[in-house]
């Protein structure tokens, strides 16, 4: 009899399956799960491994640190490591001489369009009859005084066409004027608004968005622009789309341009030689080149460019962690996804953002056996237990997946993790083909964070994991599917009126992001999952399917942490059903759901690989 622990060190979690083996009889005792410590495949993983194994031991009736009760630990074979996930911004809007203000103050004042020359509010008393002016009001002026000054100017037949002010006083000012004019407020860097220049202010009615200043031809008509100048103004119009209020000022030297940042070229090495693709050409072009170079041997980035720096960073990080020379680190796969990234407009005066195009890249470094052997030795020394590196991850996953009731070969398994999407296909004769692809849960997080404009990865993980709702009153929420739920106790004022994530136990996490709504977050989340998981599922199955034809696969079992997601399995099942494939979430050993497949596979394969277990056959 021997106690064997199969331990799967993943990018996000370390999972353990603990079993008693007598001859060829295997009795599973318990499972454990813990967050992976450090980057997968490095010595830093030992802490997470101890914790996961400890949990399994405790559940099986041993002491948490009774590691010596285990006769053999089997680790997954040389886990491929995701080195980096990065966002390359390809375009950027630059404003010189502050000619555009296109932000969304919560309460702009008035409604309509006003055209005039910008003038400091303190100089308004010097404006003459018939002048068309737009006063620029600093925060030091009280709204009553501003309204009195503007009313006085209007009574002198000065055409005050609109007002631009720094304080949040737009409505207060308009309510005190004899007629309604558009007022844009909350312009933080008011001192950068040029004076004495022709300017147009537009405020749309509540619930509507600006229509004039988001149309390049209307801007051309207002400022009498030539066709060449109209072309230049297009980024301005684009940046103002969807705003409730906007200001455009024409200055003689003012310029808005859309700069294309040289993201650089990717050099992909395959059996037929080297192919080059420019990151600016977008995700589709990059993926097509990857397919054309299949199987990829190595990928480099153009030196001195964004992508070149990123590739080198991946190599250097991996080299530092594994002691393998930089020159021996091979990048074997890459997944590119087109994104829109909200970027601060360079030179803007009210914190304006513009949606710029970008490409997100996930990279996978080729498997190396050396680091895993080193990890096995270190684990053995630390725990005093024999440790061996078992089978290849995708191979183990399929063995674990076969314990799902109703599954038998031929079958394909998709192991959807945090760092990689792995696929394997087992034929009736038991032979297995497998592949590891870059891009999984972590890349979804990167895309969500980037498209919604924040940097905290914990928040992105929460957005990926939990459904959304809107807190509509102190006692009820509306969930993203439209259903309404009531609570017995009043909800916290901090979540009132906000878009929030609905955690387990009805805990609400408010999203404090500017200008978001349920639909925007939901569509970003679903698009990121589609682009990464559905795309990778098809890519992976194509590689392992007989004759690379997905239609020849009949059954697919989804396993791994991301298969527990509340919508990813349905997205994949839906897409694969179009190919006539039956796909669904696995239920490892009828009890574990989609988790623990690789760890279970490691235990199961121990009796086939003739592992040296006490009393084993």
């Amino acid at each position, binding site marked *: 009899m021997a106690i064997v622990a199969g331990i799967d060190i993943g990018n996000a979690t370390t999972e353990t399956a603990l079993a008693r083996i007598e001859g060829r009889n295997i009795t599973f005792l318990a499972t454990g799960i813990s967050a992976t410590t450090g980057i997968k495949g490095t010595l830093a993983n030992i802490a997470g491994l101890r914790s996961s194994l400890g949990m399994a031991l405790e559940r099986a009736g041993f002491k948490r640190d009774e590691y010596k009760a285990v006769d053999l630990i089997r680790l997954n074979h040389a886990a491929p490591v995701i080195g980096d996930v990065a966002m390359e911004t390809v375009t950027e809007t630059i404003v010189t001489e502050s000619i555009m203000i296109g*932000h*969304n*103050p*919560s*309460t702009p004042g008035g409604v309509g369009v006003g055209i005039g020359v910008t003038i400091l509010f303190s100089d308004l008393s010097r404006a003459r009859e018939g002048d068309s002016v737009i006063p620029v009001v600093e*925060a030091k002026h009280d*709204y009553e005084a501003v309204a009195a000054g503007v009313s006085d100017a209007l009574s002198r037949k000065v055409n005050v066409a609109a007002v631009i002010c*720094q*304080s*949040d*006083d*737009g*409505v*207060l000012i308009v*309510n*005190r004027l004899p007629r309604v004019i558009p007022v844009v*407020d*909350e312009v*933080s860097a008011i001192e950068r608004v040029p004076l004495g220049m022709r300017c147009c202010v537009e405020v749309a009615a509540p619930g509507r968005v600006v229509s004039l200043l988001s149309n390049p031809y209307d801007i051309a008509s207002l400022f009498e622009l030539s066709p060449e100048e109209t072309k230049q103004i297009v980024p301005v119009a684009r940046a103002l789309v969807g705003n409730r209020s906007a200001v455009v000022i024409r200055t003689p030297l003012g310029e808005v341009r859309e700069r294309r940042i040289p993201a650089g070229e990717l050099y992909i090495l395959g059996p037929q030689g080297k192919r080059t693709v420019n990151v600016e050409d977008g995700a589709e072009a990059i993926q097509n080149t990857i397919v054309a170079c299949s199987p990829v041997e190595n990928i480099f980035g153009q030196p001195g460019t964004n992508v070149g720096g990123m590739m080198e960073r991946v190599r250097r990080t991996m080299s530092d962690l594994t002691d393998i020379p930089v020159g021996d680190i091979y990048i074997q796969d890459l997944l590119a996804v087109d994104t829109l990234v909200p970027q601060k407009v360079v030179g803007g005066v*009210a*914190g304006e953002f513009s949606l710029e195009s970008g490409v997100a890249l996930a990279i996978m470094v080729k498997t190396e056996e050396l680091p895993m052997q080193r990890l096995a030795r270190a684990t053995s020394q630390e725990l005093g237990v024999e440790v061996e590196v078992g089978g290849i991850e995708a191979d183990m996953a399929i063995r674990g997946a076969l314990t799902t009731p109703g599954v038998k070969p031929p079958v394909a398994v998709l192991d959807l993790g945090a760092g990689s999407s792995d696929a394997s296909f087992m034929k009736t004769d038991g032979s297995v083909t497998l592949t590891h692809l870059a891009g999984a849960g972590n890349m979804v997080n990167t895309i969500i964070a980037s498209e919604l404009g924040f940097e905290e990865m914990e928040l992105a993980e929460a957005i990926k994991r939990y459904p959304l709702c809107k807190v*509509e*009153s*102190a*006692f009820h929420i509306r969930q993203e599917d439209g259903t309404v739920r009531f609570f017995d106790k*009043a909800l916290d*004022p*901090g979540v*009132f*009126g*906000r878009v929030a994530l609905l955690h387990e136990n009805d805990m609400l996490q*408010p999203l*404090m992001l*500017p*200008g978001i709504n349920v639909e925007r977050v939901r569509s970003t989340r679903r698009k990121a999952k589609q682009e990464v998981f559905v795309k990778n599922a098809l890519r992976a199955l194509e590689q392992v399917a007989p004759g690379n034809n997905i239609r020849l696969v009949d059954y697919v079992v989804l396993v791994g942490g991301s298969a527990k997601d509340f919508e990813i399995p349905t997205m994949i099942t839906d897409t694969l059903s179009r190919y006539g494939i039956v796909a669904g979430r696995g239920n490892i050993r009828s009890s574990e759901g989609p988790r623990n497949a690789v760890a279970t596979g490691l235990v199961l394969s121990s009796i086939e690989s003739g592992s040296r277990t006490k009393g084993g056959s």
Partner: protein
Amino acid sequence: MNAWFGRVGGRDALPDNKPSIWLVTDPSFEERDARLVASGCEEEGVPLAWDVKSGSSSELARMACLRSRLEVGIGIDSGHRGAIALVAVNDAPYIERDAGTPARLRWIGQAAARMSKGQPIINETQRRGMDGHE
């Protein structure tokens, strides 16, 4: 010009049936300060009716919300303690804050107005920074 602020019984009193937030304060509370609360409401497009009574801020806020057609009320007591109450939440004020500064008075008005519209409360530091984002 629309009426955005009025004292009960005064010449500028709002019509009885006008949907508005109610502010009930201690008699020592000055009109100048009430107008600061009103400016926070007005910027959000919500009128404010003002009355005076004696009591704690939570008692005054409860009184105020029960008189408001928008079911949101503000109470400010003699110690310049402020409270916002909702008719639906009857066990305690929904929000309680010190109401000792002009910025805080305007924030209380704005917070009550936004709640009456079902919108999130703007963070107090953001209000001071006037960067306009929620």
